[in-house]
């Protein structure tokens, strides 16, 4: 069983904890992550300060992870940032899988489309992922949707290639031959007979895409081409903190630790899933 694998347990449990943090962020002693107070700028972790609410009141607040140069609470921003990262990771994996599966099925099953589709995929793969992503985001103005699409695009060819190679193997199986002989329509064969047999490798691939997407979203925000700076994402917190890194390194470290931990958990989960679902595949080549 999948759950008996140690990597799956560790990765899954960490991820579950992060999901709970993301959902429960408002009740974990946080304030609205966009609130700030000029009197509480650049506090060190653990210091007391005040925060101005939207209706003009000033309330005392314990800054567990310190505050940034606007006087915003890093702890609140990091916790709310979990939401953005997890949503981006999951959404990117779904978008890339959906498009990749569609293209891969077509390329693998429809001979005439194969050449064209795969040439375009090769072309996309020849451009480093980060360059595609920052260009797309910068040109279409950063919003949650564009960031997700921008990060998903460079991953589509990898999924398409995987699906295509699986389809080429599966289509030779006797049960496909039987389906063809029975006069089953092509879409029906593709989605009803071939697709279900590609799910295990796709799940593994999806996990890796998720990890990569969370990483890339943070990089985009950090470079200043990602989501707008007032949205609390780990990359944005670090981008804001880097200016004062020498004096206040915690602005970079707390979100950095959360980011590394999340990506690590997803990667470990992926490794565990790969080992349990795909015992034939020795070690790795998912680069």
């Amino acid at each position, binding site marked *: 069983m999948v759950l008996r694998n140690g990597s799956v347990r560790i990765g899954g449990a960490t991820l579950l904890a992060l999901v709970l943090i993301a959902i429960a962020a408002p009740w974990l002693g946080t304030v609205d992550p966009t609130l700030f107070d000029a009197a509480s700028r650049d506090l060190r972790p653990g210091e007391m300060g005040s925060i101005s609410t939207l209706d003009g009141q000033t309330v005392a607040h314990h800054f567990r992870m310190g505050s940034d140069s606007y006087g915003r609470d890093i702890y609140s921003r990091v916790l709310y940032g979990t939401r953005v990262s997890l949503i981006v990771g999951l959404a990117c994996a779904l978008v890339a899988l959906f498009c990749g599966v569609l293209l891969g099925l077509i390329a693998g099953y429809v001979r005439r489309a194969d050449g064209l589709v795969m040439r375009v995929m090769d072309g996309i793969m*020849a451009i480093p992922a*980060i*360059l595609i992503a920052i260009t797309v985001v*910068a*040109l279409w103005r950063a919003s949650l949707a564009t960031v997700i699409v921008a990060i998903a695009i460079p991953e589509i060819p990898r999924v398409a290639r995987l699906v295509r190679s699986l389809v080429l193997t599966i289509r030779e199986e006797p049960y496909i031959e039987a389906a063809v002989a029975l006069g089953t329509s092509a879409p029906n064969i593709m989605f009803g007979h071939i697709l279900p047999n590609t799910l295990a490798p796709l799940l593994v691939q999806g996990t890796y895409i998720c990890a990569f997407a969370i990483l890339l979203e943070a990089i985009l925000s950090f470079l200043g081409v990602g989501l707008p700076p007032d949205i609390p994402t780990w990359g944005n917190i*670090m981008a804001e903190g880097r200016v004062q890194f*020498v004096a206040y*390194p915690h602005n970079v470290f707390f979100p*950095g630790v959360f980011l590394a931990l999340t*990506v690590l958990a997803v990667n470990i989960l992926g490794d565990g899933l790969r080992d349990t679902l795909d015992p034939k595949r020795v070690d790795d080549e998912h680069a």
Partner: protein
Amino acid sequence: MLLVVAVLVFALLRFAPGDPAAIMAGDAATAEQIAQIRAGLGLERPLVVQFGIWLGKVLSGDLGESFYFRIKVATLIGQRLEPTFALAALTILIAVLVSVPLGALAAWRHGGWLDRTLMGFSVLGFSVPVFVLAYLLIWLFSLELGWLPVQGYARIADGLGAFLRHLILPATTLSVIYIALIARVTRAAVLEALGEDYIRTARAKGLPELRVLVRHALANAAVPIATVIGIGIAILIGGVVVTESVYAIPGLGRLTVDAVLARDFPTIQGVILFFSLVYVLVNLLIDLSYVLLDPRIRY
């Protein structure tokens, strides 16, 4: 393949919203001024014609003029080439020197402490973002210990010492993910080679273990290692963009970010084409090197 890249790059940037002429003209420009700039840039002609003209120029080495820096993109790339090339070369050097011996040793003592440590480190290497690592290293070596400069770049012409002092931290940062990648593949490939009959033969005839490992196992694992170094170039290029930003190195990566922020179409096109060309060429060279690495392969 490069033609596909060219079409993609051109399409991506030309269909993007945002009028480069309006950006160049600035906020105070009148409609006539903008139209004038548009005409000057050739943005009014049919797209196919624009693409044809552009491709012809690209093939003759003319990448156009930067909207933002107002100089030839080819010149611009030339100016920024040295830091990026130096950074990439040093990174690859460090990565190969560290990861290949470690990967081979891990495979040799399969399941031992080195093996488990290395595999753990390798997952970690894939997960820690380049810029988090960069700040960790800056904090440790530049701020706490004060051994190395925090940021900046020194040209080779300024002296080898200063050049290396500025470059060692960025290159180390960047090499971590590369090490993780190469070490994994080296381990897997050597592990496979060690299971072959010729290894048993070599041991049986009394060859020293080091010679078995290097001459017989590692030599037979050379092709997959070379392949992954080539694939890793894509990760390296992505890493260069981030690392140069963190360490304030005036290279191609920094140029890419600046160009994107300034919506400088010709420069973005030029940089992406250049990076893709490098990636494809490096992988072509690696394909050709298989002949040297494995005498069984003939083209």
